[in-house]
C-alpha cells in the first residue's frame, strides 16, 4: 500500500502543474518596481568626486542609495515596520553612513558604496533625542548620541563606546540637542520649559564635565524647533511671541541677548511660527555664520552673524524652499521661488554675500496633477572654471522625487506614493481608433444598404492603410539599431492587444501626513491616482487630489468598461470621511485619468455603503447605489431610465451591512420608492467576538463546471450561491487557551446561516479567500504554535435542486459541508485566488509571504475530499492522499528571485486568454506578472519550433508532388510496354 501511495505521489509530483519560468523568460512578462517611501533624510554622497549616489532614509524605515543618473536603486535595506525600525537620524561622514534606529535602540554604520554593514551596536535603553558627529582637529572620529538621561560617544570606525555619561538633573531638564564645534568639546543643550536653558559641556577625551551652566529663557519650550547653533558657537533662537532673536554665546556663557526682529526691519507673517535653517558643512568645524530665517510660508531672509551683530544679507520673498549646499570651501544657498502657476525657479546665491550667482537659474515645471514642492536637497559641485554648478532633488507633497539638472532638465522622477497603494482595479484598454471605427459601424443604426456598403468599404480601406503603415514602420524600425528603437508607452499608442493581456492598472495611493494624524490604520490626508500600463509598468497618468479628509475610506469601482465605444470608460472613487460620514465621488476616465465631465451627485447625508448593480443606464454605465444613514438609497447615475429600471427590479435588489463595532449584520430589501426595509438581522455579541472581515464573491467570477465528477462517474454538484458571505470573527479574549477564530457562512439575501465553524485555541490575523463553492482561511494556532490553513467546501449533493435559476429564497435543502485543515510552514501576509475569463482553468491560491515571495499553491492541495485511505475511486478522481503538511516548492514562487518587500495585497484579473491570469502584488514594491494555473493550454509555447514544423510540412508537400509525378511517368511507361 505504501508503495502504491509513493507511486501515486510520484505521479502527482511529475504531472502537477509547474509555474516556474525558464531563464530566458525572466522579465519577459513581469516587472517589478522598487520604492522607498517618503524621504525623511537625504544626503548626497560627496566623498568621491565621481560618486553618483544619494543616500536616503525614509518614513517607511527604508535605507537606500539612489543612482542620481537614473533614479534606480543601488541598494536598499528594509527594516522592520513600525517604531522598532524607525530611522531617527542619518549622519553621513565620508563613505560611512551612521543610522540611529528604533528610537535609539540601535546604532548602525553602513558602507555607502556597496551598502554593506560596517558595524551595529545595541544602545542602552532610553528615548532618543539627538545625534551628531564629533570631530577634533579636522578629523571626524566619533558620533555622539543623546538620549533622555544619558549621552554616549562612539568611535566611528568600529562603533565601540568611548564613554557614556549620565546627564545631570535629567528629571527636570529636557535635554534635546547635542552640538560639537570641533574643539574637543561636546555641548548638550537642554531646556526646562518656560524657565531656563541648561548647557552641559563634556570633554571629548574622557567624558568629563568641563562646564555646566544655565541661562534664563522663560519663553523657550523646544530647542529643536526654534534654535540653531550659528557661527562660533552662538546659540540662536527665535521666539514667535516676542518676535525677536535670542543669542547666547556658548563659550562665554553670558546672558542671552534679545534682538527684536523689528530692529532688523523684519516682520513675521501673522500666526506664523518662524524657524531657523543653519548649516554645518564639516562636523569638525564650526557651523557657518550665515543662516536662513523663515518669516512666513513663502518668506525667507538670509542673515549673517558678524561679530555678534546680525546683518541682513538678502530678503527672499516669495521663496518656497531654501537649502544650503557645500562643495569644497564654497557654500551656496539655493532658493526656490514661484515663477508662475506651473513653474518654479531655483537660484543659487553665495552664502557669504547673498549675491546671486550667474547662470544658476533652474526651472522646475510643476506637474499640474501633482503636489507642491515640499523639500529641497541640493548637490553643489565645482565646474572646471571654478564656478559652482548644482543638481537638485525636489520632493513634492505627493511624495514625488524629481531630480533636476541645469537648466531645468528632469533627469528622473520617482513616484514614492506608489509604496502605499490602498486599492486598485484593472481596466481593459480601448481598441485602437481603427478597430473602434469598425466596432462603431455595427453599433450605429442602419441607414440604407448602399451607404452601409460604402461605410464597410471605407473602414476596410482604413484598416488596410493602418496595416500598410504598420508594416512600413516595422521595416523602418528594423533598419535602425536596436538601442534607438524606443518603446515608449503613451496615451496615443495604448491599445488593447490581441489577447487582452495588456491592461490599465488604476491604483489609489494614500499619502499620509504625520501631522494631525491619529493612530489609525486609515489615516490619509490626500491621495494620488495612478494609471499604469500593465505591460511595461510605465506610469501613463497621475492625478493628485488634495484636501481629502484626514481619516478617509476609499472604494474604487468601474462603472463603465471600454467595451461601449464611443462612450468613454468610467471609474468612480468613493471617498468617505470617517469622522463626519460624508462622502464624495470622484468620477474619472481610467485610461486618460481625466476627471469626467459628469457631475457626481451631492451627497448631503452620511453614506454607509455602496453597491454596484449589474443594471446599466442608456449610456451603458452601471448603476451605483449609495446607502445613507437613514437607509435610503440614491442612485448614480439617476436618470429616468435608471429609476424606471430600479422600480422594476426593486424587489430583487438586496443589500447587507456589517457593523463590526456593534457586531450587527443586517440585510435590507429595496422598495420601489428607493427606501429600504430590514428583512434580517444577526447579532454577534461584540464583547465575545468581533467581526474581522466579510468576504462575498467577486462579481466577475465565472464558474464553468457546476459539479465534480466522482470516481464512479456520478456528479457531486457544487453549491454555488452567489449571495453567500463568509464572515470571520476573532475572539476578544486573547488568552491563548481561550482565544478562537470563527467563520460564519451566511446567505446575504435571507440571512440564513449556512454553516458555522469555530477553531479553538487559534488567533488571527485571519486571511480569507471566498470563491466558487469554497472558502479558504489561514490563522495562527496557539496550541500547536503554527500557521494553519482550513478549507470549507459546499456541495448540493448528487442532484441539483434547480439547474436553471438560483434563488436564495427558494432553497429548501442545506448544502453538504466538507472541511479539512492543513499545516502551512510559513506565516503569510496576504492571500488571493487566481481568476480567469471563463473559469475553466483550475484555480491556484496566491500567497504573499513575509519573505517577499509570492507562492502559487494549487487549490488541489486544499481540497477537503483528500482521502486518508487511498481507494480506487479516489485515485480515479485524481485526489491527493491527505497529508497534514502543505509543501512549499521553490518552483511555485511566481516571482522567482524578485523579492517583493512587505506585500500588502495581491490583485488578480482575468485576461482574454482562458489559461492566463494577470497578477499584481503591491506593498513597498509593485510586481506584475502572469500566471498559468493549468499551463498555457491555449497558446503555442515560446520555443515552439515553427521552422521544423513548416519545413517538415513543405518537405512532405514537395515529396508528394514529386512522387505523384514519378507515379504518372511510371504508369505511362507501363502503358507503352
Amino acid at each position: 500500500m505504501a508503495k502504491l501511495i509513493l507511486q501515486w505521489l510520484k505521479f502527482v509530483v511529475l504531472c502537477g502543474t509547474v509555474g516556474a519560468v525558464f531563464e530566458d523568460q525572466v522579465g519577459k512578462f513581469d516587472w517589478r518596481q522598487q520604492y522607498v517611501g517618503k524621504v525623511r533624510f537625504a544626503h548626497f554622497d560627496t566623498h568621491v568626486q565621481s560618486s553618483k549616489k544619494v543616500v536616503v532614509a525614509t518614513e517607511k524605515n527604508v535605507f537606500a542609495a539612489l543612482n542620481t543618473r537614473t533614479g534606480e536603486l543601488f541598494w536598499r535595506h528594509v527594516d522592520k515596520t513600525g517604531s522598532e525600525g524607525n530611522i531617527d537620524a542619518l549622519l553621513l561622514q565620508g563613505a560611512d553612513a551612521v543610522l540611529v534606529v528604533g528610537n535609539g535602540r540601535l546604532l548602525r554604520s553602513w558602507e555607502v558604496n556597496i551598502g554593506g554593514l560596517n558595524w551595529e551596536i545595541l544602545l542602552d535603553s532610553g528615548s532618543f533625542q539627538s545625534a551628531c558627529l564629533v570631530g577634533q582637529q579636522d578629523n571626524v572620529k566619533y558620533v555622539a548620541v543623546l538620549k533622555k538621561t544619558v549621552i554616549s560617544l562612539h568611535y566611528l570606525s568600529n562603533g565601540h563606546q568611548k564613554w557614556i555619561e549620565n546627564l545631570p538633573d535629567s528629571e527636570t531638564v529636557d535635554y534635546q540637542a547635542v552640538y560639537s564645534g570641533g574643539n574637543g568639546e561636546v555641548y548638550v543643550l537642554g531646556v526646562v520649559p518656560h524657565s531656563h536653558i541648561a548647557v552641559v559641556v563634556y570633554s571629548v577625551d574622557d567624558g568629563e564635565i568641563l562646564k555646566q551652566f544655565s541661562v534664563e529663557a522663560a519663553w523657550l519650550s523646544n530647542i529643536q524647533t526654534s534654535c540653531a547653533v550659528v557661527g562660533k558657537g552662538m546659540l540662536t533662537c527665535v521666539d514667535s511671541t516676542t518676535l525677536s532673536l535670542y543669542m547666547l554665546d556658548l563659550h562665554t556663557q553670558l546672558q542671552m541677548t534679545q534682538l527684536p526682529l523689528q530692529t532688523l526691519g523684519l516682520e513675521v507673517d501673522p500666526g506664523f511660527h518662524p524657524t531657523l535653517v543653519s548649516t554645518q558643512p564639516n562636523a569638525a568645524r564650526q557651523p557657518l555664520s550665515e543662516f536662513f530665517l523663515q518669516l512666513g510660508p513663502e518668506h525667507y531672509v538670509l542673515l549673517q552673524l558678524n561679530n555678534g551683530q546680525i546683518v541682513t544679507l538678502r530678503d527672499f520673498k516669495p521663496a518656497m524652499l531654501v537649502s544650503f549646499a557645500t562643495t569644497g570651501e564654497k557654500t551656496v544657498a539655493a532658493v526656490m521661488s514661484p515663477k508662475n502657476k506651473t513653474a518654479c525657479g531655483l537660484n543659487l546665491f553665495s552664502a557669504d554675500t547673498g549675491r546671486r550667482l550667474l547662470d544658476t537659474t533652474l526651472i522646475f515645471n510643476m506637474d499640474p496633477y501633482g503636489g507642491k514642492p515640499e523639500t529641497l536637497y541640493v548637490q553643489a559641485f565645482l565646474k572646471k572654471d571654478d564656478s559652482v554648478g548644482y543638481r537638485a532633488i525636489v520632493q513634492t507633497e505627493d511624495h514625488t522625487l524629481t531630480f533636476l539638472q541645469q537648466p531645468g532638465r528632469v533627469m528622473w522622477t520617482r513616484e514614492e506614493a506608489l509604496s502605499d497603494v490602498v486599492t486598485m482595479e484593472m481596466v481593459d484598454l480601448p481598441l485602437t481608433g481603427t478597430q473602434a471605427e469598425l466596432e462603431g459601424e455595427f453599433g450605429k443604426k442602419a441607414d440604407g444598404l448602399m451607404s452601409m456598403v460604402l461605410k464597410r468599404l471605407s473602414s476596410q480601406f482604413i484598416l488596410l492603410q493602418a496595416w500598410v503603415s504598420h508594416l512600413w514602420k516595422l521595416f523602418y524600425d528594423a533598419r535602425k539599431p536596436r538601442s534607438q528603437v524606443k518603446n515608449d508607452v503613451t496615451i496615443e499608442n495604448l491599445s488593447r492587444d490581441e489577447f487582452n493581456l495588456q491592461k490599465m492598472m488604476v491604483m489609489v495611493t494614500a499619502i499620509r501626513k504625520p501631522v494631525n494624524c491619529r493612530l489609525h490604520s486609515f489615516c490619509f490626508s490626500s491621495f494620488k491616482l495612478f494609471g499604469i500600463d500593465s505591460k511595461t509598468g510605465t506610469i501613463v497618468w497621475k492625478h493628485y487630489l488634495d484636501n481629502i479628509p484626514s481619516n478617509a475610506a476609499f472604494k474604487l469601482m468601474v462603472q463603465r468598461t471600454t467595451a461601449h465605444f464611443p462612450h468613454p470608460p468610467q471609474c468612480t472613487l468613493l471617498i468617505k470621511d470617517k469622522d463626519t460620514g460624508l462622502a464624495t465621488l470622484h468620477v474619472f476616465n481610467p485610461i486618460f485619468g481625466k476627471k469626467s465631465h459628469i457631475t457626481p451627485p451631492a451627497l448631503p447625508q452620511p453614506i454607509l455603503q455602496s453597491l454596484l448593480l449589474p443594471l446599466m443606464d442608456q449610456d451603458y454605465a452601471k448603476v451605483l447605489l449609495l446607502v445613507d444613514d437613514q437607509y435610503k438609497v440614491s442612485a448614480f447615475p439617476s436618470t429616468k431610465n435608471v429609476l424606471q429600471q430600479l422600480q422594476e427590479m426593486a424587489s430583487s435588489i438586496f443589500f447587507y451591512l456589517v457593523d463590526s463595532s456593534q457586531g450587527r449584520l443586517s440585510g435590507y430589501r429595496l422598495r420601489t420608492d428607493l427606501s429600504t426595509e430590514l428583512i434580517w438581522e444577526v447579532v454577534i455579541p461584540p464583547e465575545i467576538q468581533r467581526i474581522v472581515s466579510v468576504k462575498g464573491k467577486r462579481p466577475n467570477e465565472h464558474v464553468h463546471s457546476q459539479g465534480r465528477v466522482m470516481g464512479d462517474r456520478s456528479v457531486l454538484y457544487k453549491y454555488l450561491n452567489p449571495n453567500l458571505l463568509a464572515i470571520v470573527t476573532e475572539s476578544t479574549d486573547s488568552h491563548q487557551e481561550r482565544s478562537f477564530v470563527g467563520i460564519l457562512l451566511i446567505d446575504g439575501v435571507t440571512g440564513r446561516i449556512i454553516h458555522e465553524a469555530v477553531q479553538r485555541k487559534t488567533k488571527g490575523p485571519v486571511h480569507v479567500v471566498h470563491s466558487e463553492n469554497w472558502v479558504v482561511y489561514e490563522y495562527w494556532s496557539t496550541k500547536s504554535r503554527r500557521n494553519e490553513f482550513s478549507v470549507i467546501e459546499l456541495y448540493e449533493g448528487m442532484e441539483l435542486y434547480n439547474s436553471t435559476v438560483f434563488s436564495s429564497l427558494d432553497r429548501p435543502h442545506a448544502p453538504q459541508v466538507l472541511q479539512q485543515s492543513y499545516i502551512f510552514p510559513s506565516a503569510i501576509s496576504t492571500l488571493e485566488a487566481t481568476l480567469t475569463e471563463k473559469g475553466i482553468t483550475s484555480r491556484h491560491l496566491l500567497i504573499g509571504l513575509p519573505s517577499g515571495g509570492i507562492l502559487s499553491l494549487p487549490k488541489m492541495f486544499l481540497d477537503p475530499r483528500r482521502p486518508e485511505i487511498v481507494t480506487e475511486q479516489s485515485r480515479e478522481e485524481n485526489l491527493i492522499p491527505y497529508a497534514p503538511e502543505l509543501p512549499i516548492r521553490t518552483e511555485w514562487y511566481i516571482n522567482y528571485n524578485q523579492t517583493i518587500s512587505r506585500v500588502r495585497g495581491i490583485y488578480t484579473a482575468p485576461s482574454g486568454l482562458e489559461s492566463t491570469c494577470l497578477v499584481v502584488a503591491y506593498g513597498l514594491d509593485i510586481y506584475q506578472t502572469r500566471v498559468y494555473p493549468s499551463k498555457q493550454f491555449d497558446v503555442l509555447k515560446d520555443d515552439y519550433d515553427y521552422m521544423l514544423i513548416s519545413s517538415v510540412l513543405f518537405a512532405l508537400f514537395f515529396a508528394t508532388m514529386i512522387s505523384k509525378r514519378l507515379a504518372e511517368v511510371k504508369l505511362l511507361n507501363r502503358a507503352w510496354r
Partner: protein
Amino acid sequence: MASPGGQGGGALSTRGGGGAKRMKWALELSLGNTRSRGDRQGGQGDVVYPIGYSEKPVPDTSIQETDKNLVEKRCWDVALGPLKQIPMNLFIMYMSGNTISIFPIMMVCMMAWRPIQALMSMSATFKLLESSSQQWLQGLVYLIGNLLGSALAIYKCQSMGLLPTHSSDWLAFIDPPQRMEIMGGGMVL
C-alpha cells in the same frame, strides 16, 4: 530451350541457337522428321495425337444447377457468418481488457464497424441469398447476427466507459444557473 510443342502433335520449338536457320517458331507436320521425338513425354512410340488432344482428363466444370442442397448450404454459410464471429469477438474483447489505449480502441472500432458495414450492404447480401428458398429466414439470421455483433461492440464501449451514460458526461453542458437576486454591500465604511 526447346519446349514441348504443346499438347498438339505439332512440336513447337524455339531454338536458342545452334541451327543454321533461326526461326521463332515452327510447326512440324511431316512425320519423317523426328527431331523432337525424344522430347515427347510419355509419348507412346509413334502414336501421334491430333491437334487439341490432351492425355490428361479434363475436370467436369459444368454447374450442377439442380443441386439445391448445395445452394442452401452456401447461403446458410453466408447467413450464419456474423454469428460465428461472435465467440471470436468475445475472446478478443476479453483479451483486450478495459483500459483505454490505442489497441483496445482499434479493436472496438473494428468490432463496431464491421457489423455496421454489413448492415449497410444488406441489399447486396440479399442478392446473394436470392437463389435460396429460405431467403427471408437467412436474411433475418444474418441481420440478427450483425445486430448482436454491434450490441457486443456497444457493450464493450460501455464497459470501457466510452458511452455518455453517466450524469458526469453531460456536466460540461450544464449552464450556470441564472441569478434571481442582486445582492451587495459590506462593512459600514
